[in-house]
């Protein structure tokens, strides 16, 4: 489970100006559900996920991941999560198998246990075929499969997916979406950030709409549609982030 309570993140730019990237965000994501973080580019989705995955520290509020506080229990939080985005790259001079072995060892696995986990992850992501190729020589889709395998090598109960289909072709994107659905079916907590409405409609059990760092709406898609009086996801989103000048159907 992921619980964020009043999470804020403030940056100070080169000119000493304060930039509030996330402003008192609240949301709860439950096991066995896909929780969508919906927002335009620059809304604060990535910053919020980075706070939750302990890459950066919040400047206000509290958050727990799998019961661990993100500020006090960084290593335990990181052990509980798998993090995937299009910006999380692979090591080009390692093979897919070596890459997974490396990350498995960082999670404390070794010997036969590590080998088993690597082979399982490769098999589950259908990456065994190209496991001995250098990551630099893999296609975008193959790279994404290896990234997914890296995400699940330690079988984390929580998955953070930061726009994982951005820049992918339809086949590679399909692989990612199927993986997210499978993770939900296995009872994992999935927090999935996106700005693609079709993905929200297909995947998300619950949605938090975030705009300019603030949470503008929270609930199931049907609840949000009802709340905004909208008939589709796109209209619902626009009405939530621009309530006064919202477009009517």
């Amino acid at each position: 489970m992921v619980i964020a309570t009043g999470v804020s993140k403030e940056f100070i730019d080169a000119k000493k100006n304060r930039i509030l990237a996330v402003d008192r965000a609240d949301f709860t994501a439950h096991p066995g559900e896909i929780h969508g973080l919906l927002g335009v580019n620059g809304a604060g989705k990535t910053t919020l996920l980075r706070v939750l995955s302990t890459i950066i520290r919040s400047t206000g509020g509290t958050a727990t991941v799998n019961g661990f506080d993100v500020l006090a229990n960084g290593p335990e939080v990181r052990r509980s999560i798998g993090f995937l985005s299009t910006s999380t790259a692979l090591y080009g001079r390692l093979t897919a198998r070596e890459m997974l072995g490396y990350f498995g060892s960082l999670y404390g696995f070794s010997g036969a246990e590590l080998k088993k986990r690597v082979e399982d992850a490769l098999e589950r992501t259908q990456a065994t075929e190209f496991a001995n190729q250098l990551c630099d020589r893999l296609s975008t889709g193959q790279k994404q499969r290896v990234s997914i395998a890296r995400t699940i090598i330690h079988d984390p109960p929580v998955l953070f997916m930061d726009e994982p289909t951005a820049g992918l072709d339809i086949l590679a994107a399909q692989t990612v979406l199927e993986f997210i659905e499978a993770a939900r079916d296995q009872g994992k907590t999935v927090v999935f950030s996106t700005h693609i409405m079709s993905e929200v409609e297909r995947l998300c059990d619950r949605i938090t709409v975030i705009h300019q760092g603030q949470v503008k709406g929270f609930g199931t898609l049907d609840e949000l549609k009802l709340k905004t009086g909208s008939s589709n996801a796109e209209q619902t989103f626009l009405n939530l982030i621009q309530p006064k000048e919202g477009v009517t159907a």
Partner: protein
Amino acid sequence: MKIGYGVKQVFLKEIRELARDRRVLQASIVMPVFIIAIFVMIMGVIQESVVERKAVEIAVVGSEKFGSVNLPGMEYEINSTPVVSWEEGLKLLREKEVQAVLDTTYINEKTLANANARAKIGYSSDDALSPVAIGVIKQSIAHQNNIEVKKKLTHFKVDESFAEPIKIDEVNFSKDKAPSGSNIISLLPYLIILWAFYGGMSIVSDLVAGEKERGTMETLLVSPVRRAAVALGKIFSLMVVCFVSSLTTLVAVFAVAKLNLPMTKTLFPSGLSVQFIDVLAALILLISLVSFFATMLVSICAYSRNIREAQTYLGLLSFVIILPAIFSQIIGFTGMERALWVQWTPILNTAVLLKSLISGEGHYAFLGPALLENFAFAAIFLRLSIQLFRREEIVLRV
């Protein structure tokens, strides 16, 4: 979780990646071997040409008996060329056909008898062999003076040994098996330090700033490994590269000496021989130096936003590193090689000590200050690196 958890994993992964990086192989092994081998051979050819030019030519106006005396202990062959006039001698001097002109026109039996014989010497100070020619001429004239004085003493029935009241006994204390190739030895510390730095510099921007730029840093930092362990793993792997680079330089010189090529014979007539204790001290010194360089390079790249920014900083830093190394080349001529300030100047003390260890002189008084400073700087930059890795900018500043 243990503090050192993950250091080994990060280190081994970096070493594996570096071993597959062609740039590392080129910068750390191929280039040092290739460039040093070429460099040593060129030095050999230059040395050979200097050796070949050991004949000193003196144009003599008048008597040929002057300019025919060899200076004791010098291997120069002295040739005198008779010319008819001072002007003809000067012409040859200007054309660098001779290194000095000696006019003996006013040296004859009459002037010698009256003790007012005069010799005129013309030379060009921009010719490196002119001082040798002048020395030979003066020695020759002194010899002639001595003969004349002895003649006078004999004439007045005084023992001719009074002409030389002070006798000189010369003893050569040069080591029989001293390491030769002194020109190369004076350059070796410079090359070793240079390559220890450049070997690391060639890849560090990719190792840290590059990882940030490509997005793999974020992947790494969402693992349970502490950031200090990530920094340490990277620093250790960079130390290996710096160490291999500097060691390759040393090995290349010894290999060329061992091959005994025709063009390097004059550089290493009796090979390069160094004591085990000196080798051990040199290796410890190198470890301290590469730990200083590796921590410094990693902290600079951890501070940089991206590869380009890192390379700009590294370019500027290279001047700071090179200057003391260059200075170590000329300090030997200044007589300040063992000065206290040299002992405590970072990098310069390491270069001077390395030089003395390789040449067999072993200025061990430098070992303490050099190790202390190198490890102190390494500790400072290690702390800085870890602090920079703990900052959010390690992921965000791209």
